[in-house]
């Protein structure tokens, strides 16, 4: 009787851990979507602060950091590095992107391109650049949602199924 309970408990543990591993494997997909969505909101707010208030980037990023739970800490560090007034903008910007691991290579490429032009021209050109980046982010978000929907479900399903199979074998 005792050994049956042990087997059941062991099997439950195996299923739970494989399901957990499955969820873990899906996490990057979900985090990418959430991070890109936050970036999109951030850029829209940034556009307002640049266009309407002509707020310098340091202040504008300081402002948008407050409403951005995922990237807020990295934005704050970025602002601090800009405050040091020692480096060119692009170097600081690239380090900032490095501090956001949830971004994938394609996402980084779009934001890196934005960093090359951010702050370097008048308001109308800034608006165009930000709108172009927003369009790219929207495309990436659609892509990331699709991946979350499909690839992001495959891993958990396979791992959970493997766990169940292992449990059956154990029993």
């Amino acid at each position, binding site marked *: 009787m005792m050994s049956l309970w042990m087997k059941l408990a062991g099997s439950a543990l195996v299923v739970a851990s494989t399901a957990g591993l499955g969820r873990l494997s899906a996490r990057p997909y979900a985090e990418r979507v959430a991070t890109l969505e936050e970036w999109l909101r951030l850029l829209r707010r940034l556009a307002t602060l640049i266009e309407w208030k002509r707020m310098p980037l340091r202040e504008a990023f300081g402002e948008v950091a407050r409403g951005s739970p995922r990237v807020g800490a990295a934005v704050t560090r970025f602002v601090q590095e800009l405050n040091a007034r020692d*480096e060119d903008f692009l170097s600081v910007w690239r380090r900032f992107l490095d501090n956001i691991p949830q971004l994938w290579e394609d996402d980084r490429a779009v934001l890196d391109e934005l960093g090359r032009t951010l*702050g370097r021209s008048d308001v109308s050109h800034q608006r165009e650049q930000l709108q172009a980046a927003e369009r790219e982010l929207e495309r990436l978000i659609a892509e990331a949602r699709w991946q979350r929907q499909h690839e992001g479900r495959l891993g958990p399903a396979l791992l959970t199924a493997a766990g169940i199979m292992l449990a059956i074998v154990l029993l």
Partner: protein
Amino acid sequence: MDPWSYLPNPWRLAVDEVARTRFTTLEEIRFRIGRPAHLYGAGWNQPLRHASLPETVSSAELDRIVGVLTDHSVYARVEELCQGYLTLPGGHRVGIAGRAVSDGGRVATVRQITSLNLRVARAVKGPGEALYQRLTANERPLGSYLIASPPRGGKTTLLRDLVRVLGDGGWRIVVVDERSELAGFGGTGHSGFGFDLGYHTDVLDGWPKPEGIQVALRTLGPEVIAVDELGAMQDYAAVWQARYSGVRVIATVHARSLDELRYRKDFIGLWEAGGFDAVVFLSADPRPGTLQQILWWSDGR
């Protein structure tokens, strides 16, 4: 803060290590492509040398310096750049030389920057009081005045101190500070300004002179309006409007003598109609702010 504090390293570090005796009298730094950065002080000048500095200033380095000075936000400073300058917090001026990019006959931006000139703005207390005493001697009431001098003659410094004296003396003054030089917007101390302009003084920072004067007249009820560097026809028209409204105006202009001013139609119209009670001429010799002559309207035109 000194203007040098806004430079990126290694320039900031190099200026910090300039000999104390010279540092305290340092007035400006000039960066020119292909030459070493150069320091200018009261009666001296020398190249800026430091182990960490490049031998000469490169174009890329100038771009980096401008990037840092504009807070990496050119869009916020385009109006200033188009006029060939930047104002740093505290009222310090950065002159910019480069190639103008025109759009429809108007300068749209400046590219290929070839030189920069960072000039410190310092408050000098005392000459404003002395001038006020002279202008109001023999129970003469406070009037409208034009302070004239060649560039670097000390007129902005004198106007700033005169505003402080009047502001502390109970006059309600509005300063229309188009280039943020008079009040030093964004400086540390004095309610967000770099300079003390007196207790009863309000500042319209960044307003073009004509619009600023109109807003002052409509909404701030000033007894005196102070503006720096009259130049365009619209500036003189705005001064006219203020004078018609019974408000005194104290302004500055680039000119060495009345003869030089006589070539400017806008000035002559205003002067002959009594728009200014006196023109105060300053000289940079032996030092900036030296009072050369006060020409009273009542003494003949």
